[in-house]
């Protein structure tokens, strides 16, 4: 009975995090982006500096009609948002935010494998949406998404492999248990590659060619309305939370910090994740969209060689230490 309660409690906590954190990131994006562009952003919803803007947006989305185009593949079309969103929930389960059994939804031994594999499934949602919509813009977007996934999954995996080599384990808490501060400069190139590749997989600007709203009208999401569209948006922000959390855990030492080691580790994890989420927003505001060929070029000629170099460096240092 106690086990059931424990599992239920963990699931509830992870689920609440899954619903709240993306909204916090979304609201931060509203405000940070506005101020970076010399605007104020939302100011009215909720009274104080528009804190309830995303709640209001959610209510609006829920009221809208849920349209399925006549020629669309109905079942696949309706299923796609769930396929895009749920993988991030599963990944969130496996990310440890503090030391010990209590601060992770579920300890997975092959953590890195699980996390990267499940994150790849999320892209499938976009592909399904693009194909099922029976719309040329959607199809273009979906195929660009697929091309982007193929190009960026490799550097991401290689960068993660470098950390796994350094720690000698593929378990996420295991990696953090072996962490020393000098791992940060040691793995910094891998961290950059991982973060950039992750951004590209989330199709965040400047890597948003697949959903380019001014060119192919939101790509795979062109035909979506109401709540299903909101789910795709939520998936994007959940993706930011997951990517920043993973980068924190793999490369920035998760719960390790200069002080407050006992009991306050989760604060460090959340803090680092928040800073990374800010960087994600910052990049979106600062850079223009990369062209499709530039996207491919960046992945194959820059990120992949850098990731391979990082692996070589990790191997050499590892052998030298032993």
């Amino acid at each position, binding site marked *: 009975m106690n086990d059931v309660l424990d599992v239920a409690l963990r699931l509830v906590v992870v689920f609440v995090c899954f619903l709240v954190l993306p909204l916090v990131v979304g609201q931060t994006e509203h405000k940070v982006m506005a101020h970076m562009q010399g605007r104020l952003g939302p100011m009215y919803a909720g009274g104080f500096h528009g804190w309830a803007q995303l709640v209001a947006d959610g209510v609006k989305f829920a009221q809208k009609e849920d349209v399925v185009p006549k020629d669309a593949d109905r079942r696949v079309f309706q299923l796609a948002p769930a396929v895009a969103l749920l993988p991030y929930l599963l990944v969130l389960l496996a990310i440890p935010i503090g030391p010990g059994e209590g601060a992770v939804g579920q300890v997975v031994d092959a953590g890195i494998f699980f996390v990267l594999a499940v994150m790849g499934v999320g892209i499938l949602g976009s592909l399904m949406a693009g194909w099922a919509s029976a719309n040329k813009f959607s199809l273009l977007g979906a195929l660009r998404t697929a091309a982007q996934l193929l190009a960026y999954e490799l550097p991401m995996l290689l960068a993660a492999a470098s950390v796994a080599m350094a720690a000698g384990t593929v378990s996420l808490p295991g990696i953090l248990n072996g962490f020393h501060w000098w791992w940060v400069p040691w793995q910094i190139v891998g961290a950059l590659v991982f973060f950039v590749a992750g951004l590209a997989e989330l199709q965040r600007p400047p890597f948003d060619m697949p959903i380019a709203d001014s060119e192919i009208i939101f790509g795979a999401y062109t035909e979506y309305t109401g709540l299903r569209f909101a789910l795709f948006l939520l998936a994007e922000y959940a993706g930011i939370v997951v990517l920043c959390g993973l980068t924190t855990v793999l490369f920035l030492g998760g719960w390790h910090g200069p002080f407050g080691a006992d009991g306050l580790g989760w604060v460090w994890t959340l803090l680092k994740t928040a800073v990374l989420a800010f960087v994600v927003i910052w990049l979106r505001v*600062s850079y223009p969209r990369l062209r499709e060929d530039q996207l491919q070029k960046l992945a194959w000629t820059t990120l992949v060689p850098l990731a391979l170099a990082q692996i070589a460096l990790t191997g050499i240092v590892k052998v030298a230490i032993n």
Partner: protein
Amino acid sequence: MPIPGSGLAKGLAVTLRTMTRKNVTAQYPDVQPELPPRTRGVIGLFEENCTVCMLCARECPDWCIYIDSHKETVPPAAPGGRERSRNVLDRFAIDFSLCMYCGICIEVCPFDALFWSPEFEYAETDIHELTHERDKLREWMWTVPEPPALDPRAEEPKEIAAARKAAEKAAAAQAAATEDQQ
């Protein structure tokens, strides 16, 4: 040769700097804007000065001023004199859905019956209500601000210059007359 990536860093610096600056957005419905002097918001009518000369209606480039009047006769001022006729204003309306705020009517009015007011919040849901009749135009008159002060060392206003000239002339004539007596 610039350091590779310095352009990227510059881009990030620009956005970060903008974020830390206080921005200049005025929260309009909550905060009223500070309008410059001589703002052209709406036109007020000072009816008592109007002689129904129709100059404003005729000069208006988009024909948005409506004036109706009739003639009345006034009894002669002195006994045995001729009756005088005078125009009485029946309707004076400006259609602000047509008005292009050029201000020609105000410039052209020889008797100072039209004035600019800085009030601008008179949006309506029905376009017909943008035709302001004389009572509304009179209400606007009370919102007309004092004319802004002249710039330092500006030329003095024509009225004052003319009055001063007349006064000086009179003083000179008087001085000449007293000199003659002596």
